[in-house]
């Protein structure tokens, strides 16, 4: 099997190590085509990150077997699963709203999987009790799902998925059903459980924070395609699309680099500290932008644009100003500074970014 040469059909080549997930998911759905390549090693947590409608959930459902693949491959630990019905796949799913069976207790929900996979009633319940205990839910074993808090329900759902000892764990927006206050705690708990999980975990989310906290590697999906892939730190530092840049709070531009200058496809040039040539991205955080009411004098190696305030948003003690004009960008400043500048929608301002605050990298 390992000696096949490169001219053999793609399907037959074992690309990844036999362990873990190796998939190319192609799903056609009335005008929408999902085509993503996804690999993961055992013990790795991969997050599919993307805006709503990007096809993340479809990818997850395809992995679970709930949606048939139009094309591609799905290998788990070297075994092809694309013709295997969902009930026979070694795959566990934590659904977005958990879908705990409302008529069963927490214990029976968790025991459901082992029972379906051949355990006796007593064995299944014993295993379920153990899982609930591990999740710190021993005293809620007899509770019906409607009497569980959001965080507890999520842990029951996780226990239920893990109780079948899956080789692939899928989590669909695991935080979406929780309120902001419980999120922090639940996220930390989920991270602990995922870190202890020895097989592949794939989670789908539109929340970059969830993705960055929970996953070892991010796969960013837009319009059914993978647009970027890498560690959270890497993606945060070098975003490749507007969507990712906005997610991680960066201003991002694409252009052609020539030395210390990147000439944008549409708009002005940006002076950068890195020296590059060819297609390039330039990124800088909104906090690197300084705003002035009048044109500042004595500009060195820095960028100066004439802009107009399009909108203002307050968060914490900061104000984020959305600017249009020569270069559309976001700028962060303190509420005091915003008041002193007299910022209001329509106000003209000068925006300045030092070259040393920008980050340019090849596109």
């Amino acid at each position, binding site marked *: 099997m390992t000696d096949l040469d490169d001219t053999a059909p793609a399907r037959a080549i074992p690309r990844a190590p036999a362990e873990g997930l190796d998939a190319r998911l192609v799903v056609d759905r009335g005008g929408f085509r999902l085509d993503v390549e996804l690999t993961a090693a055992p013990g790795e947590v991969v997050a599919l990150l993307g805006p709503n409608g990007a096809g993340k959930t479809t990818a997850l459902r395809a992995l679970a077997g*709930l949606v048939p693949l139009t094309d591609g491959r799905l290998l788990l630990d070297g075994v092809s699963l694309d013709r295997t019905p969902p009930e026979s796949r070694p795959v*566990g799913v934590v659904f977005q709203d958990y*879908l705990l069976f409302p*008529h069963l207790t927490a214990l029976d929900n968790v025991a459901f999987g082992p029972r379906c996979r051949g355990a006796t009633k007593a064995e299944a319940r014993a295993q379920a009790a153990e899982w609930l205990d591990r999740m710190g839910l021993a005293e809620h074993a007899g509770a019906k799902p409607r009497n569980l808090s959001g965080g507890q329900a999520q842990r029951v759902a996780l226990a239920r*998925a893990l109780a079948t000892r899956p080789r692939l764990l899928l989590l669909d927006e695991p935080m979406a059903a929780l309120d902001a206050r419980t999120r922090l705690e639940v996220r930390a708990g989920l991270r602990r459980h995922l870190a202890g999980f020895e097989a592949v975990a794939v989670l789908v989310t539109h929340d970059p924070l969830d993705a960055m906290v929970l996953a070892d590697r991010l796969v960013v999906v837009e319009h059914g395609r993978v647009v970027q892939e890498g560690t959270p730190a890497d993606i945060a530092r070098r975003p490749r699309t507007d969507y990712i840049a906005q997610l991680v709070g960066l201003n991002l531009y694409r252009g052609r680099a020539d030395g210390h200058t990147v000439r944008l496809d549409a708009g002005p040039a940006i002076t950068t500290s890195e020296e590059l040539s060819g297609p390039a991205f330039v990124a800088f955080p909104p906090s690197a932008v300084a705003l002035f009411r009048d044109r500042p004098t004595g500009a060195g190696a820095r960028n100066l644009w004439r802009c107009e305030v399009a909108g203002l948003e307050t968060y914490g003690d900061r104000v984020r100003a959305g600017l249009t004009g020569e270069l559309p960008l976001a700028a962060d400043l303190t509420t005091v500074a915003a008041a002193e500048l007299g910022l209001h929608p329509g106000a003209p301002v000068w925006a300045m970014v030092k070259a040393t605050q920008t980050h340019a990298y090849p596109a």
Partner: protein
Amino acid sequence: MTKPATTTPGGVGGGPRRTRLRRGTRAVPVPLLLPALAGLAFLLLPLVSLLVRAPWRDLPEQLASAEVWQALRLSLVCATSATLLSLLVGVPLAWLLARTEFPGRGLVRALVTLPLVLPPVVGGVALLLAFGRNGVVGQWLDSWFGITLPFTTTGVVLAETFVAMPFLVISVEGTLRAADPRYEEAATTLGASRFTAFRRVTLPLIAPGVAAGAVLAWARALGEFGATITFAGNFPGRTQTMPLAVYLALQYDPAAAIALSLVLLAVSIAVLAGLRDRWMTAS
């Protein structure tokens, strides 16, 4: 009652408590109110008359007769059997209609509901042509297994099932459509076959709808007349159910007919009360 105060549209009438026929602050238009009251009266009047004209003094004697209890027992047994038979085949049929895609599903659904609108006598004639001694299927049942269905108690059950099952199927199908199919998916990802998912997850979830459908079907079967008398005849102790007994009694002993009717009315009210408490307010 915690609605924000609003001004009365039109501003007719005085204070908000002036008439009792008001809901909130909006008056009920007379062109709707009068026909509604007439309809209500029309529905209630016959039932009231039944109570008014009931031979209350002779009632114990009337109800003590063996024929009455025989007919009632037969009615209950047949209606219950018909309901069980409907559950056995009707719930899977409802699942098929609600959860699967197949060519001609719309047509099948229409055919299933046909007995709802078909005159029961026509149903009885059709049953005779199918299961009668010379019927399409009946002739084989007779010559191969020696089974005769028409004019037997089994025939009553079949006639009642034919008429009552659509109520169950429609009710269960509606409940299934309203139930979240993703629970079945969740069960599937846990290793349950589609049948196990149905049995252990879907069925418990739709139990209220199934029960409501079963009660509807049972009530319909209990009152079944046309198809029963056509297909099963009117033999006391064998095929003479309560509605048939009522009809027969009306020919020669109206007092007995009223007494029998009162029994059926009591049973119906008991069923309705049970339905109301368990299922109607819950859903």
